[in-house]
């Protein structure tokens, strides 16, 4: 049986029946998109791998609860997004710029909120992250609220419709539209400041 030719729903059905290859095929299809979303949300490669790994394990161990009337991709993204948001809320992470808080009103406030790099030698992971997430657009996305970031990435990187994003984020359609409009407005403003 060529699992690569099967649709996601059929693979999920086979996985629920105990076919390990079906699990592996689903994993190979969605590990990059899910990891990319989580990585851009937490901006820490090691942490993103742990969170994405945990999201897949939860999803696969609850494969029986997947309902075929929904898209499998929406289901797995929902689990990953919820898991990441829960983690961010627990850690109370904030989007901090290395150059100081974007909300600073004076140069003194900016200096106080500026991150101090204690070592001139970057750890390998930090070097990779700086290289991968160091572009203007990536930095601008990193300065958005987590909910705005998720909406923008799902819409423009993963290509989901408004309805699918509402299903993934478990939000009303109007809220998703509002998030997207505000996120794009903020991105436009941030990129205009840089240019």
């Amino acid at each position, binding site marked *: 049986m060529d699992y690569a030719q099967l649709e996601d729903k059929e693979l999920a059905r086979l996985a629920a*029946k*105990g076919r390990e290859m079906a699990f592996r095929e689903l994993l190979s299809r969605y590990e990059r998109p899910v*990891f990319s979303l989580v990585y851009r949300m937490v901006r820490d490669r090691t942490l993103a791998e742990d969170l994405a*790994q945990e999201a897949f*394990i939860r999803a696969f161990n609850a*494969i*029986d609860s997947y309902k075929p009337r929904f898209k499998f991709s929406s289901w797995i993204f929902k689990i990953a997004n919820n898991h990441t948001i829960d983690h961010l809320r627990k850690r109370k992470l904030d989007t901090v710029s290395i150059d100081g808080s974007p909300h600073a009103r004076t140069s003194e406030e900016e200096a106080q909120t500026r991150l101090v790099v204690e070592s001139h030698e970057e750890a390998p992971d930090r070097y990779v992250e700086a290289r991968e997430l160091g572009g203007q657009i990536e930095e601008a996305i990193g300065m958005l609220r987590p909910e705005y970031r998720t909406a923008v990435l799902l819409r423009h*990187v993963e290509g989901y419709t408004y309805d699918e994003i509402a299903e993934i984020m478990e939000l009303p359609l109007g809220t998703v539209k509002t998030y997207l409009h505000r996120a794009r407005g903020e991105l436009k403003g941030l990129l205009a400041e840089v240019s």
Partner: protein
Amino acid sequence: MAREHDLRHLNSEKIQEFLDKGLTPREEALVREHLSACPDCRGELEAWSLLFSELGSLPELTPSPVLSRQVLARVTVRRPLRERLVGWLGAKEGKAPLSGHLPAEGLQDYLDGALSGRQSAGAAGHVAACGVCRSELKGWERLFGSVAALGRFAPAAGFAERVMARVRVPAPVPALWVEAGRRVVGWARGFLPRTRRGWAIAGGVASAPTITMSALLFLVFSHPLLTVGNFTTYVSWKASALLGSLFSALASAVVESVALFRAYSLLETLAKSPILVGVGGLVFSLMSAIALWVLYRNVLAPPSSVESHYARSRV
């Protein structure tokens, strides 16, 4: 005495009104008459006049280009009732921005394909005619393109193995039974009705024998001489007689069968040679073993172990 309260002089308010041309003709004439006779007030007038001149020569500052658009996009005007009704029938909003430009959210929804057909056509027409909105739309297109061009990242090597190490793969159901069951269910589904009318007809047809039999039983047992016990005894007697006659006919057919007689004769001949008996037994045992092995591989062996082996050999 302070100048402001000295009734011999003009107060600053009166001088400013004089410079602003805010006095009546009679008041202005009185002020001019006083100024011609009062050097102090003339000096005060000159000072105020100098200030007015400096204020008037301040340069006009230019706000950010987006300021006016942002303000105008958020200011709405109520169109006449007739226009609003026409707009409500054909569009989402009954209000139009004061400036006549599309709001940022509208341009984004237009790019996202989230507008209805009519709204999208209206937006396209406006953009084609409005250079400001066309420029704004291009800006949004560039932003959308920049975000869409972001690539996907790959996790570190071994990610899949770490995930699968903690996934509980359910015990698989034997494939043969699953496939057979699925085929039977699929075949049976073909006979199921698909409409309410079909279900009504099927229900009527299925219940007809039950109703008929019930009616017959009622008619039969409504006879005073026929009871359930008598009927049961009669049926069992008849069934026993039928089974007995069938069994005896079968037994006679078997015993008197020519084929069976020939087979028996053959076995009698073969049994006279021990070698032939041994070979026959060996062949029979071998065929039995092959049959059992085929049965085991297709019914009892777990398919995942076979597929995993195949998968490992592919990788």
